[in-house]
C-alpha cells in the first residue's frame, strides 16, 4: 500500500487530495500508468508528465525512480513559492 497525494490543479482534476493505492508498480511511471488505466480522470490529469513533478517520501524524484520501500508518493505541478 502506498499513500498517493495530489496537489494544486492536479488535486482538483483527480478530485481527491490523497488515497491509499494497492500496487505492484516498480517505478513512478508504472504507477502513473496503472492509475491512468483505472479511470479517465487520471488519464487526463497525467496527460503531460513534463508539466508534472513527483516527490517520493517528500523528496523530489524522477518519473523513472523505483518505488521499492517508498511509503508516500506525491504528484503536483511545478512549484510556485516565494
Amino acid at each position, binding site marked *: 500500500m502506498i499513500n498517493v497525494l495530489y496537489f494544486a490543479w492536479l488535486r482538483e482534476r483527480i478530485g481527491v487530495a490523497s488515497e491509499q493505492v494497492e500496487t505492484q508498480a516498480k517505478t513512478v511511471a508504472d504507477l502513473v500508468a496503472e492509475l491512468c488505466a483505472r479511470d479517465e480522470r487520471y488519464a487526463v490529469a497525467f496527460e503531460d508528465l513534463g508539466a508534472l513533478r513527483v516527490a517520493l517520501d*517528500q523528496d523530489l524524484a524522477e518519473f523513472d525512480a523505483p518505488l521499492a520501500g517508498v511509503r508516500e508518493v*506525491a504528484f*503536483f505541478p511545478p512549484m*510556485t513559492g*516565494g
Partner: protein
Amino acid sequence: MVIRVESAPFDFTTEAGAFGAGRHDIGAIVTFCGIVRDLTGDLQAMQIEHYPGMTERALMKIEAEATARWQLADSLIIHRFGLMRPGETIMMVATAAAHRADAFAAAEFLMDYLKSRAPFWKKEQSRGGETWVAAKAEDEAALTRW
C-alpha cells in the same frame, strides 16, 4: 536559523527588527519580503496551498545549503499558506553576515530555490474566476546560476 510555515499573517517589521538584534558580529542584514501584488486591481485574493511536511523539509535543505555555501551568522525563512489579500505579506527571508556579499548572495539563493523547489502553489482569485499561477521558465533558469 529559523524556518516557519504558517497560515497566520506575520508582521514583517517586527520580524526584521528582531532578526540579528543585539549581535555585534553582524555587519550586513539583507531581507526580502514577498507581497501579494495586484497590478490591475482585479485580484481579490491569493490562495496558497502547500505540502505539509515536505515544505519544512525542503526549506531546511535549502537553508542548510545556503549555510554551507556562505558565511552566515543567521538566517530566517517565514512562508505563509492559505488565503491572502492584495498588499499582504506572503513570505520573507532574512540573512545576516559579517560581509554584505554573503548576505546578498544567500538571500537571493534562498529565494531562487524557494520559488521552484519548495512545494507551494499559488491560486489567484479574481472576479473572473480562479487561476493557478504557472511556474515561470525564468524562475527555473535562475537556479542554473548557483
